[in-house]
């Protein structure tokens, strides 16, 4: 705004100066022409001088005649007289009169001269008479001063005229010089301004370029570590694939830090950032030491990408993966203190026919997921199954939408037997997906995906509602167990959902058991336990599922008053079992007694196993021995058919 105003002002001033310059120049030019013209005008001095000369020639001629009174001399004297008269007539012309007009004193001199000369004309006829000639000469002699004066004054007047013209011209030239200097100064000023502006433009240009470079750096690099970001990494990958792939192999490693969230929670975000910076530095240093062409990028969070080149004779990528894991064996020194963190690494070898960096990154990420699934410090190499798994997953996510509206996800029930009485005391509702083309899918195939996609909310509620309804048709006394997923507990208002479903289906709360896995319980989330307690108050039983599989220590069992502990099926021995197992189960039985909860065993497949756990003190058992998971109608029919038969007889028939 300021700049444009300045430009307009400058232009206006410039235009004004050009106009003034033009007018001034014109006027100067006119003055000079006029002045020069003046000096070229009629010259009275010249005229005066010639007149004086003619006068003296007349005198000379007359004197000659006096000495030699010949006819020729007489004629000459007459001619000289005529010439002088002619001169007088010239002096009567406008040019000389203009000069005389400025000098009244000279006009008198001229008039006197003119009259005296006219008077002499008559004497001219009698010049042969010496006396007349004498008078003639005397008169001329008297006129001498007049002519001298006229001539010299005319000359002086002309000098003055010329002097004035000269002065005028000088003044005009001086003005022109001044004017020229002015224009030159102004132009210099303009030039300086233009240069300054150019300078500031250059500076602005430099600033803009610097900003653009910074922006480009920001766009290409991670602001925390300065490492390339995902997009830039992809560009580099594409470039590398285009040029280098032929003579050696390259692989993309995806890496993330194990338990980084815990570190972040412990040392705060600044500490976490300090760790990430230190990790980035070490990764880059070591990666470049392996091969100068290697590139390290940060995806965000605690995820890093490495582009690794492998020349001939270099160690294999698996070895390189191993050494990358080793880079984390020493603590990282940061401002927030020394920190030890481990990493998991997944990698994929870039094949020449895979050109899309996006796919390569996806493969590396899949491999990383696989590596993490294998526990801390894991290494995995991408293989095709991983992508198929991913494709399966994507497919399921898409299909879940249809499943909801086609009501394809239904509970199957597996009976639970009281080991003392042998009666069916409950059923565990297990989610099954009755897919029209794929057939029956177990929960492993879709529950985790549904948890991530959020489909678990409607799915969980659907299973719960179906279970609460079905159980009342299957039995009048048996309980039903329904699994709760972490997503239901955290993401939804589970308490009111359960209460509402119970109310709507009319199932008494005491007939419902909700199972949560040990891994959920170990999260130690107060909110989860608050919800569970709330549900427990209404009479619903809460079971700890998959007990013994996670990282949990036994002491944690005491944190909640569990109604059931479900021993994981991995504890069920194939044969007779051993002393250690017995000791563990015996220990669990004691605990369960102490905290007043039932001990349930899953995966019982043989009578021997049933007898074993019965002997060890488990109250309830579940497994193929007592029946595979089956749709509700199966049990309704069975119940009608065997309404008076005991469960024991049923079992023995199998």
């Amino acid at each position: 705004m300021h700049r444009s105003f300045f430009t307009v002002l400058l232009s206006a001033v410039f235009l004004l100066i050009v106009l003034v310059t033009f007018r001034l120049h014109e006027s100067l030019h006119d003055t000079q022409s006029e002045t020069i013209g003046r000096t070229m005008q009629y010259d009275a001095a010249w005229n005066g001088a010639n007149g004086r000369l003619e006068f003296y020639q007349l005198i000379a001629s007359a004197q000659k005649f006096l000495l030699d009174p010949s006819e020729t001399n007489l004629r000459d004297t007459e001619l000289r007289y005529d010439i002088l008269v002619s001169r007088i007539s010239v002096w009567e012309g406008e040019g000389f009169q203009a000069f005389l007009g400025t000098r009244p004193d000279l006009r008198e001199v001229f008039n006197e001269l003119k009259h005296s000369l006219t008077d002499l004309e008559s004497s001219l006829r009698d010049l042969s008479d010496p006396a007349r000639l004498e008078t003639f000469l005397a008169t001329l002699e008297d006129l001498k001063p007049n002519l001298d004066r006229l001539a010299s004054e005319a000359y002086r007047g002309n000098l003055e005229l010329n002097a004035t013209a000269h002065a005028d011209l000088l003044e005009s030239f001086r003005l022109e010089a001044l004017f020229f200097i002015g224009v030159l100064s102004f132009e210099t000023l303009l030039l300086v301004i233009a240069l300054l502006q150019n300078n500031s433009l250059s500076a602005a240009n430099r600033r803009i370029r610097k900003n653009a470079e910074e922006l480009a750096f920001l766009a290409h690099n991670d602001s925390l570590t300065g490492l390339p970001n995902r997009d830039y990494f992809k560009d580099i990958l594409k470039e590398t694939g285009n040029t280098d792939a032929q003579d050696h192999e390259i692989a993309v490693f995806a890496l993330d830090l194990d338990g980084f969230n815990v570190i972040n929670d412990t040392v705060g975000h600044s500490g976490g950032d300090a760790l990430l910076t230190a990790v980035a530095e070490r990764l880059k240093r070591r990666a470049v030491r392996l091969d100068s062409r290697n590139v390290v990028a940060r995806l965000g969070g605690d995820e890093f990408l490495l582009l690794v080149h492998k020349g001939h004779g270099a160690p294999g990528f698996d070895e390189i993966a191993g050494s990358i894991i080793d880079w984390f064996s020493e603590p990282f020194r940061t401002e927030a203190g020394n920190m030890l963190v481990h990493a998991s690494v997944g990698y994929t070898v870039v094949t020449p026919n895979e050109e899309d960096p996006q796919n390569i990154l996806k493969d590396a990420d899949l491999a990383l997921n696989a590596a993490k699934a294998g526990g801390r410090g894991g290494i995995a190499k991408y293989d095709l199954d991983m992508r198929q798994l991913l494709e399966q997953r994507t497919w399921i996510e898409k299909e879940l939408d249809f499943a909801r509206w086609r009501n394809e996800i239904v509970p199957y029930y597996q009976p639970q037997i009281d080991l003392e009485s042998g009666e069916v005391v409950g059923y565990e509702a297990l989610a099954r997906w009755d897919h029209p083309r794929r057939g029956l899918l177990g929960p492993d195939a879709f529950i985790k995906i549904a948890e991530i996609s959020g489909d678990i909310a409607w799915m969980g509620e659907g299973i719960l509602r179906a279970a609460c309804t079905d159980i009342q048709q299957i039995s009048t006394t048996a309980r039903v167990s329904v699994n709760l997923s972490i997503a239901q507990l955290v993401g939804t208002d589970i308490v009111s959902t359960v209460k509402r479903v119970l109310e709507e289906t009319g199932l008494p709360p005491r007939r419902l058991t909700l199972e949560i896995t040990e891994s959920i319980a170990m999260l130690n989330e107060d909110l989860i336990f608050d919800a569970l307690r709330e549900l427990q108050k209404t009479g619903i039983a809460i079971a700890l599922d998959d007990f013994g599989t996670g990282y949990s220590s036994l002491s944690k069992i005491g944190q909640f008053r569990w109604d059931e502990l479900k021993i994981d099926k991995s504890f069920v021995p194939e044969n007779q079992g051993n002393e250690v197992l017995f000791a563990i189960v015996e220990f669990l039985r004691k605990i369960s007694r102490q905290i007043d909860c039932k001990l349930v065993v899953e995966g019982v497949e043989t009578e021997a196993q049933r007898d074993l756990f019965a002997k060890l003190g488990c109250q309830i058992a579940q497994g193929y021995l007592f029946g595979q998971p089956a749709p509700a109608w199966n049990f309704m029919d069975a119940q009608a058919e065997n309404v008076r038969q005991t469960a024991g007889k049923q079992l023995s028939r199998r």
Partner: protein
Amino acid sequence: MGRLFLCTLTIKLILIFCAPSHGQSGQAILSVSGNIAAGQIDLTRDDLERLPQSQIRTGTPWHKGIVTFEGPRLSDLMKMVGASGETVEVIALNDYSASLPFSDFDAFNPILALKENGQFMTVQSKGPLFVVYPFDDRPELKTKLYFARSVWLVRALKIN
């Protein structure tokens, strides 16, 4: 060229057959010399009057008011005497002289005036011949240069 030659020849024949007569009008008033056909020739007022007469009405610094001058064009006179050259030196009775370029004759058509306001000019009135440029018609002539070429009391021409 042929035309100029023919014209010159014609004028010469005229001059031969009309030999200068005596008396006031028969007296030679102009002597032409230098680079001309005849080498040197004296012309009377009659000779000059036989050429086509031209008038110039103009004011001059040497006269009062507007004056009508009459006389032959200098260009015609040059043709008549078969002059060839660059300049004409015009010489006056008072020994004043000026050099007139031929180019002036075609550019401005100056005349060698015999008459001023219908009267033959005498020596006392800047006669008998007066080189007159058309100052009023061509104001650019009003400079010292052309004033100096305006010779009065003309008595001779010398073609250079």
